[in-house]
């Protein structure tokens, strides 16, 4: 809505109290006008909310940093679990190798899940 339009609207608003009571017809007209403006504003807000998931810029940067760390974390945690199992059982490289690969898979799963290609695991 432009500024001049806004001013015009304010100008024609009947002043209650000073210049006599506004008639019922006038109030009805104003209510209809207000309802129309609210509907227009609501449509505009809803319309602008839909394409908000824009690519690039702030969102893209955050997304990129997120994906990298998701993957690395999966591999690190897998390797860590394998290493701890090896320490406990004395089976030195075997559990580390297996869990490193499982961690790799978990990292890929993390990435796929955070970009929404795979639904979250729900039983």
């Amino acid at each position, binding site marked *: 809505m432009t500024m001049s339009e806004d001013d015009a609207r304010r100008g024609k608003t009947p002043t209650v109290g000073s210049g006599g009571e506004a008639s019922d017809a006038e109030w009805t007209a104003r209510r209809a006008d207000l309802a129309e403006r609210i509907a227009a504003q609501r449509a505009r807000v809803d319309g602008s909310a839909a394409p908000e998931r824009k690519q690039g810029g702030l969102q893209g940067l955050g997304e990129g940093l997120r994906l990298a760390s998701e993957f690395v974390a*999966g591999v690190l945690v897998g390797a860590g679990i394998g290493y701890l199992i090896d320490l406990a059982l004395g089976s030195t490289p075997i559990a580390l190798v297996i869990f490193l690969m*499982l*961690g790799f*898979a978990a990292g890929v799963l993390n990435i796929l899940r955070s970009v929404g290609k795979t639904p979250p695991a*729900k*039983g």
Partner: protein
Amino acid sequence: MANDPIHQFQIHRLIPIEIGGLDLSFTNSSLFMALTAAVGAGFLFSATQGRGLVPGRLQSTAELSYEFVANMLRDSAGSQGMQFFPFVFSIFMFVLVGNLFGMFPYFFTITSHIIVTFALAMTVIGVVVGYGIYKHGLSWFQVFVPSGVPGVILPFVVLIEVISFLSRPVSLSVRLFANMLAGHITLKVFAGFVVSLSALGALGIGGAVLPLLMTVALTALEFLVAFLQAYVFAVLTCMYLNDAVHPHH
């Protein structure tokens, strides 16, 4: 050395306290954590002091942050997740204020230490697991068992799901910590170039303009990263809480 880019992350004891052999000293890190909490809470207290129907500038800022976090939480965890609003909002404000504090010269950046961010991430995961088990009992662990998987590979899939879940606090904390640490080191290194180059005489002063421009650009980027990382931390907290509230869909 004045140009040491790591120097800013050193922890000093301000008030040495030792209880039972444990070093519980009040350090500069503790000081800035306390300041962060105090400034975050103080901002909201003073902003909501007026309680105007038509908000003033300060009150609008507080309302804006409330709506921002509330929408974030409602979108990812539904209206049932709104019971965690105080938790998510506190975490968001703490990380945001801590990150922005780091942008002041000579201030200590609390989120550049992994122990701080890891403690925050473990709190989040602790709440997720604790609430999930409290609310759904042992059936909450079904979150690790995807449906429609053939029995032969199910153990592997469950194992991968468990590792994926355990990697959440790691990625959550490492992301925040690494971003803040790397950003502040980069800033310091480029600012150091300005000083070193300008010591080389007239030519050096001319050349020092380039890293100075870089420092200005990086400062803007760091403000962006400070906000972005607080946002990402809060969004992921909401998504993880969703698992605790709705384990099976």
